[in-house]
């Protein structure tokens, strides 16, 4: 009889230890075998974004025995995440996603190494973090991050397992996989060379998403990753698969590398660091952003309307100043209720408030001073904790 020894699991699988029993149901597959398990245990996978896609991907990769897992996410758990981000519980609201995900995965499989990066990827930290891994999984929720991660993987020759969702549909692909023949690998910019302009594509908060859909797509990303590592089956290399959750239709498109793509990807680490991905992806919304200090100054002047655009129930609730709540989902219809000449919008991380600021600008133009709190209220509360009662 074998018993689990939770914190002493040997990395090298032997038939007589607990890890062998843990993985037995997959090692008995002849295509997978003990050799496949050894490959997983010696692999290093970085999951960027521990959200709707990242959670299921992480869960299956950790369960399958990927030996080294990195989790990058600077966000905290919100109540609106819980319908799809299945690694978190209601008690995790307000805490770091990367840390809570690590905690949850360490309980699932104590025999693997997990590193939580509680930081936002920038052009300065992306290359060093990605360098330490064999495969990158993109589970982010915005074009700026997606283009930055793609370009970093091109620069570092790292395979990128891409997944994205919108409403009821999802996309999965493997980019930047160097085959043995030495063909130029396909990357995301071979499909969409440049990020969409403002208004060309709905963002997630605007479009909504069925909770189970990123579950399916994130799980497919985990599956493609396991296939890449073990060499089993036919991975989605040089093709993109779309899945429709409403009618179960699957459609696969072939991709090929294009010479023009080289015009868009930075050729050196220095050129990469000089890229401004946020600007590329949101042509003119940065003009609204103010930092915590400027926000405090406007608070003291006292004549600004401050609006929380998070959905009802999202925490933490700031104290120490007056504000109204207009959730982003209702913002457009209630926009005329904004009366003051100076308006400051905030949300959790500063992304949704940028959208609200843009809408305010579209409605009122230069007749109002419109500001969005950079980094969101969570960041502000952290830096101003002394002022809280």
């Amino acid at each position, binding site marked *: 009889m074998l018993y689990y020894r939770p914190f002493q699991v040997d990395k090298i699988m032997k038939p007589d230890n607990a890890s062998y029993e843990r993985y037995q149901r997959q090692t008995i597959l002849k295509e997978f075998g003990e050799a496949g398990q050894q490959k997983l245990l010696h692999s290093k996978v970085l999951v960027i974004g521990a959200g709707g*896609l990242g959670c299921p991907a992480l869960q299956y990769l950790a369960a399958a025995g990927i030996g080294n897992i990195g989790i990058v996410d600077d966000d905290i758990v919100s109540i609106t995440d819980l319908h799809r981000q299945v690694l978190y519980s209601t008690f995790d609201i307000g805490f770091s996603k990367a840390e809570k995900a690590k905690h949850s995965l360490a309980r699932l499989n104590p025999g693997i190494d997990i590193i939580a990066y509680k930081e936002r990827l920038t052009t300065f930290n992306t290359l060093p973090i990605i360098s330490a891994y064999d495969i990158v999984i993109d589970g982010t929720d915005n074009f700026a991050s997606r283009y930055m991660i793609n370009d970093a993987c091109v620069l570092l020759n790292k395979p990128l397992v891409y997944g994205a969702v919108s*409403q009821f549909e999802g996309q999965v692909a493997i980019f930047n996989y160097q085959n043995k023949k030495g063909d130029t690998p396909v990357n995301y910019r071979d499909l969409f060379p440049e990020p969409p302009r403002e208004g060309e*594509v709905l963002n997630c908060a605007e479009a909504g998403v069925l909770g189970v859909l990123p579950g399916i797509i994130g799980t497919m990303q985990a599956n493609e990753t396991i296939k890449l590592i073990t060499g089993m089956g036919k991975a989605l290399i040089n093709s993109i698969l779309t899945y429709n959750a409403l009618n179960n239709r699957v459609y696969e498109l072939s991709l090929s590398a294009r010479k023009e793509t080289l015009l868009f990807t930075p050729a050196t680490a220095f050129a990469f660091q000089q890229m401004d991905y946020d600007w590329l992806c949101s042509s003119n919304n940065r003009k609204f952003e103010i930092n915590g200090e400027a926000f405090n100054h406007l608070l003291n002047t006292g004549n600004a309307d401050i609006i929380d655009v998070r959905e009802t129930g999202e925490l933490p609730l700031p104290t120490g100043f007056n504000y109204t709540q207009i959730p982003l989902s209702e913002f457009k219809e209630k926009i005329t209720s904004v009366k003051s000449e100076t308006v400051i919008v905030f949300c959790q991380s500063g992304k949704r408030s940028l959208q609200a600021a843009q809408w305010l600008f579209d409605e009122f133009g230069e007749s109002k001073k419109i500001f969005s709190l950079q980094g969101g209220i969570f960041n502000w509360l952290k830096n101003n904790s002394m002022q809280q009662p």
Partner: protein
Amino acid sequence: MKVNIILFGQLTDIAGTDNFTLENVADTDGLVAKLHKSYPPLINSKYVIAVDKNIISTNTLLTNNCTVALLPPFSGG
């Protein structure tokens, strides 16, 4: 000549359907012009075109009963 059109993502909201057929279109440029006329919001939408499951980047001749897919970028996660 009949061409099958498949739409994805928010493009289905614009057209009100995810698949339909068009007659008398010779190439992808002609097809796009026709679609823009029928569904003006497509003009301001971003998508790639695939003919019989291969992504194309230049004007491409269409054949009878071929399938043209319009795929927009998704960013959600």
